[in-house]
């Protein structure tokens, strides 16, 4: 952990060893985030922390901060930074609680800190596995047709639970025509197969469609129709 060593503000003691404690010269509201306070020591901001942390640490202007208090402020500051990291991660793409935890873990002091941030995000309605699974399913299906098994396993690989993955996949696949989707997928998957012996082409197309998660019966019918039409 980096210990903050700052000169006394306006001390004029240039060139002397830095003090082991600092003085709070101002506690200002963050212009962009009303719940945050910037703790100033002279021209330096020594922490951007939550209002409730200011209260909990009983910080006030003119307080002299010893190294342990500086560490406490730094820990609160890192918590705010971790939450911001979580917000930015969620703004880039929807994620499951488990996936977000994995992303935050390397930047957190401990696992409890990650859990606290995730709980807070859930309470604020910013993190919801059901909503995220829904959004990811829509995004995946926008890219091209896939089968139910593939969508389920993809959601599971993104950290969603088995029940949720299955129910979201079922919801999105129930009103789709799996055979039509498989035939559409086969259009791309069959490229270049016409130069191969029929047995090899059948085997390869079957594998490609199976990997896209279409059921065995649909794959068989799709392969028959696709290769007989070539």
């Amino acid at each position, binding site marked *: 952990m980096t210990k903050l060593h700052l000169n006394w503000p306006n001390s004029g003691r240039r060139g002397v060893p830095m003090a082991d404690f600092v003085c709070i010269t101002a506690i200002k509201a963050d212009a962009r985030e009303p719940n945050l306070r910037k703790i100033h020591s002279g021209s330096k901001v020594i922490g951007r922390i939550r209002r409730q942390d200011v209260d909990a640490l009983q910080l006030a202007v003119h307080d002299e901060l010893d190294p342990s208090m500086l560490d406490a402020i730094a820990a609160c500051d890192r918590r705010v930074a971790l939450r911001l990291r979580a*917000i930015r991660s969620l703004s*880039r793409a929807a994620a499951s609680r488990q996936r977000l935890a994995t992303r935050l873990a390397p930047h957190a002091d401990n696992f409890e800190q990650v859990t606290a941030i995730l709980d807070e995000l859930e309470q604020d309605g910013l993190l919801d596995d059901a909503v995220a699974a829904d959004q990811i399913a829509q995004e995946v299906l926008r890219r091209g047709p896939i089968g139910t098994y593939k969508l389920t396993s993809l959601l599971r690989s993104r950290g969603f639970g088995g029940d949720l993955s299955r129910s979201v996949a079922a919801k999105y696949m129930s009103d789709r025509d799996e055979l039509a989707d498989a035939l559409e997928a086969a259009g791309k998957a069959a490229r270049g197969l016409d130069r191969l012996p029929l047995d090899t082409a059948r085997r390869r197309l079957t594998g490609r469609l199976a990997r896209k998660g279409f059921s065995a019966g649909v794959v068989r019918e799709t392969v028959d129709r696709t290769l007989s039409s070539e």
Partner: protein
Amino acid sequence: MADRLEQLHRLLATEPGDAFCLYAMGMEYARRGEHEAAAAHLEQSLVTEPDQPYAHFHRAQSLIHLQRTNDAHAAVEAGLDIASTQGDDKAASELAELRASWGPHG
């Protein structure tokens, strides 16, 4: 059905003015074909964090959809300046490609 845009609005509300959230909203609006809102959010993102060549890139694309050709060219030039300052060859080449795709009268 869960709405990604609604969620992005909520995320932005917790970090107002955050360049990342604004960029994400710009991208989502662009994906929906709402280029006026896309360009506005990307511009706001650039006000907070000017050194984003790809924000200029996507803003330029939205501006072209809005037929604001001069503004789009200015956005590409701004993006190219940043990319060359940062030594980001990939961004520079993509911005140059975008400009070339518009042709001489684009």
